């Protein structure tokens, strides 16, 4: 095989940039990934976003453990903490019943621990957002590469399909579809089915965003020398796509999936808010916001799930922006 494509893409100037003068080793080439990583490390904002992200993912993974030590089971009622005597049904105590036992206070009416619900809600939100993004990325990059590389009528068909998907009134469709999906389907039931369905709806209809970018990148890459070289050496199309083009597309795929995740978090929250998401009592951030609307006089109820969504989306966006800058400094 010819020159590894990643090194071809390496801009020479950047390779020298970070070398200290008293480096004992000789100057050596760096891969694009290494350079990007160095740049990323210097981007404080992106690193802060990454730290928050890692924290959120850890919270989601260790939710049962965290709740065991700092909270109460997320579905457990504590109606003794709710004011039934006066009849307001709001939490007893100031600030929505916030205390060392109930870090975020309790829900009105049933007195569930808001901290536990926000922590458990991260699982649903992140799970659906990640899986949906994965689905979008798989469909989008596959079709994008094919469209960009093949050109001609294949490109035309796929590009028009993207236009159709982008013009689709997704939210309306999602609400309708989520409403008619039965309790048991495809051998699944209950919330497993809901998660699969939400992942499908969100993931399947968002692939053109990635698909377009990948198609554009492929269009420019396929004219590059290393592709010509591979072709002249007799490499078949699948090999060229997988070994020559794909490694060069990792950067945009990574960047845009990082930016797609927060929009999927928001979309899942919107669907749950509209009542077509996860079935109760499983907590999800959007569902909690929807519950909180009727109790707008008790702002703590809305504040914590709202903040959770806010920080998640912000962290992903900051990290995604940093990642893009790191891979493509000219984009600044």
């Amino acid at each position: 095989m010819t020159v590894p494509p990643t090194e071809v893409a390496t801009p020479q100037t950047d390779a020298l940039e970070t070398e200290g003068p008293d480096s004992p080793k000789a100057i050596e080439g760096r891969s694009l990934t290494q350079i990007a990583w160095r740049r990323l490390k210097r981007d404080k904002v992106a690193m802060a976003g990454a730290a928050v992200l890692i924290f959120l993912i850890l919270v989601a993974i260790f939710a049962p453990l965290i709740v065991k030590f700092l909270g109460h089971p997320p579905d457990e009622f504590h109606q003794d903490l709710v004011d039934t005597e006066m009849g307001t049904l709001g939490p007893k105590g100031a600030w929505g019943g916030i205390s060392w036992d109930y870090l975020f206070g309790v829900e009105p009416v049933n007195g569930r621990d808001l901290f536990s619900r926000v922590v458990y809600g991260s699982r649903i939100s992140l799970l659906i957002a990640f899986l949906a993004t994965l689905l979008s990325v798989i469909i989008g990059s596959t079709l994008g590469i094919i469209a960009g590389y093949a050109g001609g009528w294949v490109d035309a068909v796929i590009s028009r399909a993207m236009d159709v998907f982008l013009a689709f009134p997704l939210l309306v469709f999602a609400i309708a579809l989520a409403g008619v999906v039965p309790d048991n389907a495809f051998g699944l039931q209950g919330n497993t089915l809901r998660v699969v369905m939400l992942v499908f709806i969100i993931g399947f209809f968002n692939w053109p965003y990635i698909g377009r970018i990948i198609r554009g990148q492929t269009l420019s890459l396929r004219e590059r020398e290393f592709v010509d070289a591979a072709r002249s050496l007799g490499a078949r199309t699948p090999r060229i796509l997988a070994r020559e083009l794909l490694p060069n597309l990792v950067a945009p795929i990574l960047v845009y999936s990082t930016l797609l995740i927060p929009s999927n978090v928001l979309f899942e929250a919107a669907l749950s808010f509209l009542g077509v998401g996860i079935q109760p009592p499983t907590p999800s951030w959007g569902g909690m916001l929807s519950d909180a609307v009727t109790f707008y006089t008790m702002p703590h109820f809305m504040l914590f799930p709202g903040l959770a969504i806010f920080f998640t989306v912000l962290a992903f966006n900051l990290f995604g922006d940093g990642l893009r800058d790191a891979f493509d400094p000219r984009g600044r």
Partner: protein
Amino acid sequence: MSNPRKKRLLAVTAAAAVTALGLAACSGSSGGSNNAATTTTAAFDAANGKIFNPSDKKGGTITMADEGEPDSTDPGDSYYGYTWDLMRLYGRGLVMFDVAPGDGSSKLSGDLADGLGKPSENAKTWTYKLKSGLKFEDGTAITSKDIKYAITRTLDKDIFPDAPTYFDDLLAWPADYKGAYKSKGVDVKSAIDTPDDSTIIFHLKNSFSGFDYLMTTSQAYPVPEAKDTGAKYKEHPISSGPYMFATYEAGKKFTLKRNPNWDAATDPQRKALPDGYEYSMNVNQDDIDNRIIAGDLDIHVTGTGVTPATQGKVLSDPNLKARADNPTLARLWYTSIPTTVAPLDNKDCRMAIMYAMDRTAYQTAYGGAFAGGAIATSLMPPLIPGSLKKDFYPSQDNKGDLTKAKEALTKCGKPDGFEITMAFRNERPKEKALAEAFQQQLAKVGIKVTPKGFAKKDYFSTYAGNPPYVKANNIGLAANGWGADWNDGYGFLAQIVDSRVIRETGGSSNISVRMPEVDKLIDQAAVETDNAKREALYGQIDTLVMDNAVIYPGVWAKALLVRGKTLTNVFVNQAYGMYDYTSLGKQ
């Protein structure tokens, strides 16, 4: 039932109760409010059972707002408690509930008629005599023929889909009679006879002693045939009451002004204090609450009570609480336990649910003691004569008896519990909270409940009220509710415990009661002439249903209402479960 006190009682079972109900006894036309208790001190429940701020001062405009729209402003096409309350402003029936606080409104008096109806021996024929000097807003005299015409036109359900079907079912109409429009000119003497302008005689298919109650409904308000515009009549119904339509904008607003041809001498019940009314539609309910609190608005017309957000505000502020009233309604929020779903075909398994559930959690889910209601221990609400005062499944502090529930589970052969689905309506946060409460509480004895929400509009027709769906989807619990058309055992129980109203194709409010003994008792009560005996029969039905654990009674509903700041003469009319709209005045 899906709407606030939307009434759907049906006299299909129509065998007639020759009830005593003190019909002939309480003739009368005295304005019941004259000797009622009054108060001028603003306090919680000050207008519930008493008249708050009594006054005879005339003038001003009363502003009302509705978070939706009434089904119609045509008296012949309406089936809500609040519209029946309101329409008395621009319409009069032969009979009306006494305008009085507390129990006073359970009495009936003649309105257009000079007294209550005179039944024949077997209560199959009812005769009413009109007062003299009655006029429509245009000055023409109101005659018995106008009442006959009003009733015949509402038989046309293509034009008036919302009207109840009492008259269709009860009266002896000629064969194939389709109402005043489609069967124009057909002689309906067999059903309604008007020998002269002031006499009207109703002929029933079967005996029915509750007929005077029917005459209170807006469906029987007179309509002059010459002025009838069919489906457009709602834009300006011809008034027989103290107010008439001034303006009407569909979906937005209508206003009422004084009717110059209304004569107070013929109408001792209506006070007619303000100069007009203004009724806004499709107003956000939080906005309605806030404007009433601020004093910009007088009445939340649907009478369903404040939103949860306002509830917290009102109950925690003593000044606001002093402006609130908390009337009890003839409505039960309950949960059906379908016996077609295994293992709930076993009585002991159902008893386990009855014992295990925490009643206070039920009450809290519905809004607590004030906005939700009182914990129900049987079906019939206390407002209904014959209601039971017995707790069938007692537990300490109403928190549920887990030991007894466990015992019941062992008895039914499921000591480790079982799995069921609970149906609720997506649009109703209270029912969702209830389903979560059931899930939490029943899990303590091993019964695994999966809450599942459905669209409100298909809830009875396709899902929870559809027997094959219930069975196939393991729906062992279904959130439900029912309000009486009027406060008696027949009106409350007939539609929710009679197994003959269950349709295999769906649509019935009775989801779980399939007991031949109960059906038999309903028929027996319908022909029982003695008041006390009849009430005892309804009590017996209630007992049977409770003993068999097919309905989990939740709460007897209450509403938290806020009085407008500048209103006088405010009181709750128990017949409607909300403020009496004919008595209000402005400071």
